[in-house]
């Protein structure tokens, strides 16, 4: 008969598979540049940060992107769609090594690797950013997973010109 440990392992397995599906949908939303839809993967009070690994490891809080709550995310989405000038590009966000680390009350702590490959007009595809997600998931009333926290810690601290879309 299965031990508590085994039950936990199975629960984390199930959570991992569900989070993979979440992450793949999330990536597809961003690859379509649907930043309006991107906002809906988060809870209202979510914290979304994109932070350079050198800052992160030095406990320096500066974010490349720093959104406290959905309202700030919405403002960023609006600006990207309505006010920003940038060159056309294709986005290719791949999420691998998804891990469900622990479940505690309603919260699931998770992590994953991501790589953003950007392709600009008449340029080769280029690795724009490689990093790790540090996530906290919760479930909404409908039982759907939502991100309460996504910290994107990026290794590519020497940014190639600029980062236009969130990761």
């Amino acid at each position: 008969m299965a031990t508590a440990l085994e039950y936990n392992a199975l629960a984390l397995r199930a959570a991992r598979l569900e989070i993979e599906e979440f992450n793949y949908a999330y990536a597809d939303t961003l690859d379509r540049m649907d930043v309006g839809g991107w906002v809906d993967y988060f809870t209202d009070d979510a914290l979304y940060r994109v932070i350079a690994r050198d800052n992160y490891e030095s406990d320096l809080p500066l974010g490349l992107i720093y959104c406290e709550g959905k309202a700030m995310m919405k403002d960023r989405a609006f600006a990207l769609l309505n006010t920003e000038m940038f060159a056309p590009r294709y986005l290719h966000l791949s999420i691998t090594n998804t891990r469900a680390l622990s479940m505690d009350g309603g919260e699931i702590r998770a992590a994953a690797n991501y790589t953003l490959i950007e392709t600009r007009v008449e340029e080769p595809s280029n690795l724009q950013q490689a990093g790790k997600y540090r996530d906290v998931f919760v479930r909404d009333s409908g039982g759907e997973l939502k991100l309460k926290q996504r910290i994107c810690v990026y290794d590519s601290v020497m940014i190639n010109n600029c980062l236009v879309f969130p990761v």
Partner: protein
Amino acid sequence: MDGDGVFDHKQTNGSERTWPADETVIPDWIYTDEDVYTREIEKIFFGKHWNYVGMDCEVPGPGSYMRSYVGPVPVVVTRDADGEVHVFENRCAHRGVEFCREYRGTAHNFICPYHNWTYDLKGDLKAVPFRRGIKGKGGMPADFDMSAHGLRRFRVTVRGGVIFATASDETEPFEEYLGPEICAEFDSTFDGTEFKLLGVHRNILPNNWKLYQENLKDPYHATLLHTYLTTFGLFVSSNETNIPSDALGRHGGLLSRRPEGRPEVSEEEQANMQAFKQTMELNDPRVLAFFREFDSKWSGSVLTIFPTLTSLRQTNILNTRLLVPRGPNEFMMIWTVFGRADDDEEMTCHRLRQNNIFGPAGFLGIEDNEALKFLQDGLKKSVPGHGLALLGDDNEDIDIIITERAIRGMYRYYRNVMEF
């Protein structure tokens, strides 16, 4: 199109360049030529100029150090046991190893990894292993003088928490270097406040370093490129604005005063702004909240200190940017973002939220970096030509904003110091 050598500008020697007689004409070759770049290293970065290298708050305590640059040349900035700041070349005096590889840290001394020559925090050579050989055989010549083989040092000035270095003994004192108007504006932000480091951004821009200085001397593009500013009422041309520069034209300011409440976008202005839609409210207005903290009439103060510093005070955003040239077609930008040492947590969060607008993923940063990439693309790929800086008048008042006066001024100085 005259065929006389117009095509071979990538081969010819900068010394043979003739600058266009018309000062409103800026030749492409200052942005694209290897030999012009090489000359800039000599005449500008290692000439009689104060090069920004970092902030006091980046090397807070004794033994703190950080990597930085004078022009394209790697240097180390340190603070010694007495709290004094030193700047020296990041190149071992033995064979030339770039020995300091960490962004920043603390150390008692620097040991070159190759043969362990050891330097102190002033850059002086302190130890040469096996200097006397082994059992008295081999080693350095008896007359080897350690004091003559330290690291190349630069003269240092620290003002208001900002660190500058110069390779020349003849560079005038920093205050004279800035000149009275710019120095006054500099002091209004770097007013003795103790700053606290919030973090660093680093990015590579695929364009000539001078274009970035131009960009911040160019009020013309602000409302035209940066629709975000007008859409959310952050900046409009009708804001009170000053564009001072020093007597030599090398330094400049872009000072603007954000009105209480939302600015009016005049009919005339709207008519000229193609991208203008209608003004919006932010879902999270905290981002643009402004807490007065400096004794200055200006809510926005951008300074361009020749050659490679731009400092920004905008609402409650505070940062300095170092331009590190990497050849004519590329430079690295190091953004140092800070707050005040006495900020409480809420104020720190406010600055972090506000910085979300700036930086290499900020709404202005994206646009400037993209536009400058397009510009260098144009300069690199097209048949050599020139750009125009016709707007305004060199004797106009400093509150006139539809002008390229400051750009012309910088190049008047540049041409002179580069001996073109």
